Structure formats: C-alpha cells, structure tokens
C-alpha cells in the first residue's frame, strides 16, 4: 500500500487517531513543570483530563500514530501488515501544528505519539525523534509528551526520545512468551524488555546524577506504609519467593542480555554531571555496534541527513530530565488464556524490577478474524479489566501484594466482589478495626476507606474522638466500611462479623455497579433471568 499524499489533514487525523485508540494509556500525570516565558505549556503532576469520549475514557493527550504503515503482523492489531487498510503518515510538521493549535485551545494536555513499524524500527524511531525535536525546539512546546519506544531501535534514538519526552512506554502486549509467539510472531519478550530495562536504568542513573533517589517517587500513602511492593522489604520478600520457586508464574525472564542504561559501566561520568560533552563521547564513540547499525540504516533510506542524535541536541535539551514522568506499559487481556493471578504477578514484577510508573490493561476488542483469537463480536471483558485495575490500585496505593489477593488455587478475581472486599472477607479475624486506635496500614485495608480518608482519620483523631458521622464527612464509604469498623468500641449497626452475612450484604451493594459494567454495551432492555441476574448461587 502506498502513501496517498492527496489525503487531507482531516482524513489523516481520522485514520491515525482511529488506529491509535486501542492504546489505553492516556494520562498526562507524573511530571510537574512550570511554564516559561516564550514557551507554550506546563505540566501538572496530577494530570489533567480535557474531555471524555463516548466510551467514557478520558482524552488527555492528542493520541495519534505517526503512521499506520507496519511491517509486523501481530494478529490482534488493526494495523497488521496483512490487513487491507488505507495507509498514511503524518509529516512531523503536521503533528507539531496539530499539537500546538489544540494545546492553545485547551483541548489537550500534550501529545501521545505512537507509530506502526515503518520500514524498520530504527527508521520509525528516527522519524519520531525528528518530530519531537521539532516540537520542542522550533515550536517551543513545553507541555507533556508521551512517546512509544519502538523495540529494536538503536539506544541513541531511545535516549534522544527520552530527553525530549516526559513519559516513555514499551508495550509488553502479552504476559507470557508463548502467547506473544502465537499472536505477535515478530516480537519477543527479550526484544521488548531490553529497551524497557535500558530506559529504566537510564532514568535511575539520571535521577542519581541530579541528586534524587534512584527509584521514582511513589504516592504519599505508599511512603507512609513501609510494607508495600515498592518498599525495600517488599522487594526482598518477592526476591526470596522467586528464588525458592524458580519457575514461578508471572515472572518475566530477560534472558542473559546485559542490557544497561546509557550512562552505566565505564562511560558513567565521575563528577555526576552528565552534560553535552560526556554524552557526546558516550554516544558517538562508546557504541560502535549501534553506530554501525545506524550507518547501515542511512544507506537504506538514501542517506537522509536530518538525523537527530543526542550529540546534536542542544544543551538545553540535555538539561531536561530524562523521562521525568517515568515509564509505563500495557497488556492485552482476554485474547489469551492467562489467569488474573498471572497478570497481577507480572504487573507486580514490572513495578518492582523496572520501577514502572503504571501498568495498563486493555480489554481485548476483536478487530480481526483469526483462528487464534476470540471471534468477532465477542464482548470485551470489561469487568475483568475493571477488577485488574482495582487490584493494580491496591498494589500501588494500599500496600497489598499480589499473593495476598490471588493465589494459584484461586487464580481469578471474584466477579461479584471487588478485590478489597474479597480480601477482607477472607480475613475476618482481623476485623473489626477500631478507628480511634488502629494504625494507618490497617485502616487503609478496610473496604470503603481510601488513602485520603485514612490520612484524615489519623490526623483528626489526635484532636478528638471520631464517630460515624465524622467518618461520613471525611469521605469514608460507610455502606461498605461499616461491617468492618468500630468507633469507640461500637459498630454502626448490630451486624454479625460473619462471612456469609457480610458477603450477601456487600454483593447486594456491588451488584448494581457490576451489572452496569458488564452490560453497558448492550441494548436497553432484555429479559430478566432470576438465576443469572441475582446470582442465586451466593458467595461461599
């Protein structure tokens, strides 16, 4: 399929936004940066959503592909080489114009640039870098940029992109090697994890060089907890477990590749100030192998000279922090037979080993007819995706470990109850919790209490006894919490601490939400079924 230059900008936007929409990450969070005179844009750590599309997902960034040309043939993808779709590409200038004009009108918070693999990974990554460089230099754009790292591209290009962008991501796509081989024959985990390792090491080294800790900052609740997956103790627990069970599910193996950050090893500057000179040396002399790869590349695409190498970045670009908003990844769920346990273990492993900022889950939407995939028209597993995100939050903000939520014997989430309620019901021996004396970590584990309300509780109880009306004002969801807490020794209602009773009550509370998530795409009315809709086979 040839490039069709006669397409208008609007048609191109239609094609390339449509092709990019299955990528779920659309957050503008993690980087805090003030605006500067003469430049356009700032960045707010909490992230800003600018609109919500008809599917209820937020629109924060201009999410587009640079091109939907692709040499790969991943079975699940709309843009696979064997699909007969209209192929097109943005010029770097078109992307810049769109970003800047949308940004000024407050439509978006920045750019999310991804791409199909055009000719080869190096060529694609080079086009991406060229676009970002133009946007940062000529268009003086200071807003948020999320860029996809293309596995297989030379390290220099990944590093250049890292200095220009706020967040980078490499999609893991599927949690196991077999699934990946089956559905994405051109990709391997080794090739995907190598750039991920390289980026995370370079982030850590950059952070050390500017006097921060090597690990990314985590939320306040995680720091206050001490035992979560990001803490030193949490990591050690996992390491011990991994050693005792070497064939543990969910753990990705990188193979023997000694993948390193750009600054690591001998080329690490002693003074701790990686600046232009050192980087120049590192990138142009230190990496002969990839240098020769690049020479090969030049001969392939006819010796283009508009190449943006880190050595050619201006001083100001190199003073930018390297990927300040961290790295993320995403996994497709529902296309392959992995269990929730497997997915959650993989997620935790990615957080601990690669220090990722986020792991996203994408409920598989059937787009292609293929014997290896669910049939067209299969509804996407939205409730499962929802449960995984709930569990992801429990890992990142609530101090839970994957093994507490699921196990080999119970590998999937309870459809009727959210993971936190489910955990609480299996640990009724720990409840009820006395709000006026319990520690932060335990209060945080009560269903219906989040990090903010838990903090408010421990701050305000110093100045006076708390009671249920106070908790309600602080934002505690009492309809879930009241089974598990006491205030000054009294429960809110006379409820038994009994698993079957509480489960029945909570399922009643959850039922409406679950039904809405599961059926939100269906027509308005349908025949009611007593046994299916009301889950007559109650929990336990």
């Amino acid at each position: 399929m040839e490039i069709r230059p006669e397409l208008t900008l609007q048609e191109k936007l239609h094609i390339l936004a449509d092709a990019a929409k299955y990528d779920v990450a659309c957050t503008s969070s993690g980087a805090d940066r003030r605006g500067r005179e003469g430049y356009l844009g700032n960045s707010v750590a909490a992230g800003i959503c600018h609109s919500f599309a008809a599917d209820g997902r937020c629109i924060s960034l201009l999410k587009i592909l640079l091109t939907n040309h692709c040499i790969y043939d991943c079975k699940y993808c709309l843009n696979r080489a064997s699909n007969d779709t209209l192929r097109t590409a943005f010029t770097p200038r078109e992307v810049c114009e769109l970003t800047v004009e949308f940004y000024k009108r407050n439509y978006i918070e920045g750019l999310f640039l991804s791409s199909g693999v055009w000719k080869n990974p190096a060529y694609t990554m080079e086009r991406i870098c060229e676009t970002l460089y133009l946007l940062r230099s000529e268009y003086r754009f200071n807003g948020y940029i999320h860029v996809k790292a293309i596995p297989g591209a030379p390290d220099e290009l990944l590093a250049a992109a890292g200095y220009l962008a706020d967040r980078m991501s490499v999609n893991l796509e599927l949690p196991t090697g077999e699934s990946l081989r089956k559905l994405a024959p051109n990709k391997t985990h080794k090739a995907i994890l190598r750039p991920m390792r390289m980026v995370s090491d370079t982030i850590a080294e950059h952070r050390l060089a500017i006097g921060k800790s090597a690990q990314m900052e985590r939320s306040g609740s995680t720091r206050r907890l001490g035992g979560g997956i990001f803490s030193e103790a949490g990591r050690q627990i996992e390491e011990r477990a991994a050693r005792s069970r070497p064939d543990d599910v969910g753990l990705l193996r990188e193979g023997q590749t000694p993948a390193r950050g750009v600054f690591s090893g001998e080329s690490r500057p002693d003074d701790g100030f990686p600046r232009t000179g050192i980087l120049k040396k590192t990138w142009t002399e230190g990496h002969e192998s990839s240098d020769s790869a690049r020479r090969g590349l030049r001969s392939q695409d006819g010796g283009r000279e508009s190449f943006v190498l880190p050595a050619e970045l201006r001083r100001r670009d190199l003073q930018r922090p390297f990927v300040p908003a961290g790295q993320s990844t995403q996994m497709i769920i529902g296309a392959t037979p992995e269990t929730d346990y497997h997915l959650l273990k993989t997620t935790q492993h990615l957080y601990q080993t690669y220090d990722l900022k986020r792991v996203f889950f994408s409920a598989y939407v059937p787009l292609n007819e293929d014997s290896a995939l669910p049939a067209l028209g299969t509804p996407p597993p939205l409730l499962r995706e929802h449960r995984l995100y709930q569990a992801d939050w429990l890992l990142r903000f609530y101090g839970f470990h994957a093994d507490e939520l699921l196990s080999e014997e119970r590998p999937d989430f309870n459809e009727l109850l959210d993971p936190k309620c489910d955990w609480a019901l299996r640990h009724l021996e720990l409840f009820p919790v006395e709000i006026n004396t319990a520690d932060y970590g335990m209060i945080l584990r009560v269903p219906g209490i989040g990090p903010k309300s838990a903090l408010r509780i421990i701050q305000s109880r110093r100045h006076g006894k708390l009671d249920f009306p106070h908790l309600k004002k602080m934002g505690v969801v009492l309809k879930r919490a009241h089974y598990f807490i006491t205030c000054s020794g009294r429960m809110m209602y006379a409820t038994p601490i009994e698993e079957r009773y509480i489960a029945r009550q909570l399922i009643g509370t959850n039922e409406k939400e679950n039904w809405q998530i599961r059926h939100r795409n269906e027509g308005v009315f349908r025949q009611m079924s007593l046994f299916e809709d009301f889950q007559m086979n109650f929990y336990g």
Partner: protein
Amino acid sequence: MTVFTCEDTFEAMMTCVYDAWASRLGHDNLRLQLEPVWQQGLFCDYVHVDADFAKAAKVVRAIQRKISYEAYRQVFLATMSFEPDRLDAVYRFLVLGFASGRKLTQMLSRPEVVWIFELSRKANTEANYFREFTRFSQVGSVYVAHIEPKCNVTAISAAHFADRMPSEYWMLIDDNRRLAAVHPKNQAFYMTRLTQEELEQLRRTEEEEDLYTDLWREFFESIAIEARRNSQCQRSNMPIWYRKHATEFR
C-alpha cells in the same frame, strides 16, 4: 444580634471579618452575612462594611501566620463557593482557628472545620474541572473562553492558564458574574468587570469556527471505541452542565 453585611468580593469579606472581630460584641452576639440581604430579621441591627484593602490584608496575614497557610487556602476557596452562608462559616472557622492555631485544619471532628473543608473542596473541585473543560476559541491573535461556573473560580483557573500560556493573549470570561480575566502577552493577568454591552459583543466570539475546531471534533469522534460505548460513564466524568461551552459537544 448585630449582623455585619458586605458585598461579594474577597476583600470585602475579609474586611467584614476584621470589623466584626474588632467590634468586641462577643462572637455569639453577631452574625456575618453577604449582601444583598433580602429579608431583615426583626431584632437585628444591620451594619454595612465597605472593602478596605489594609484591613483585609491584616486578616489574611494573621490567618497565614497564626493558623497556617493551608487554613488560608481553605478560607479563600470557601469564600469562592456559592453557599449563601459562607461568610459566617468562615468567621466561625476563624474563631476556632485563632484559639487552636496550626492544628485547625486537622480537627475534622469539629463542625466548623468540616463545614469549611467541604466548601473549599467543592470550590477546588470545580476550579479543577474548569481547568480541564474550558475551551478557547481563536479570534485574531487572541484566545477567548467563556465559562459559567457555579463557584467563583475564574481567578483560580486563570492562574493556571497564566502558567500554561504565558506568551499568548487570552481572556477567560465568566458569563454569569460578568467577570473576566485578561492576560496580555508576557505579562501578569488582571481581573475586570464587563458591562452588558461588552459581554454581548464578546459572546459572539464563541461561534468562531476554524480548521482546528473541525479537526478537534473529528479527533473526538474517532478516538471513542464503539465496542466500549458507555455514555453513563461519560456523563459521570463530565457532567452535562460542564459541556455547555465545550467545542466538541456544541
């Protein structure tokens, strides 16, 4: 009972707090109320207070020094909310605050503190929403946006946009309060009241359409996944009343 009244600006409200405090009538014998006062109480004296910048500054400084910056932030946001009794709520909050000091904002078991906490949270949430859902349209070299917030969040949102677009000419207009934040290129923004005629003239800027408004609508349509359509989720994330001035819903 003596009732101190003032108009609905931050300076006037702070001056009112100052005068009420300085009257030495006793906190239980006075009330603060915003103008206009529709129905006067039978056994009340009404004292009108005019804004006085020096007195307001004293109150602000006292809150920041003797209580905390966080308490000042909450007071400011609470005065921007649309609760009719907000001025009296602020006064009760401060009476407790000057007695208890730095720990005030953590004392969530006290109703005075919870009341201001809720008002400030409401105003802050709305300010964040307007940071997100405000849409500018280009008129020549100026970008103009219209909003109709319930809380008076124009100044708070404008501070965000001043950081975001320091080198553009732009204007953020609250259509209901006829209040505008005007930002000249590379300068600080200022607030101004608009007359009815000015507002009518500026209202027309919203109909301005160009290539990028069309492209944005195209993008907005293309980015939604049909198999996941969920208008209920969309509505709860972006309630309908926020959409009035949003380009993609017009």
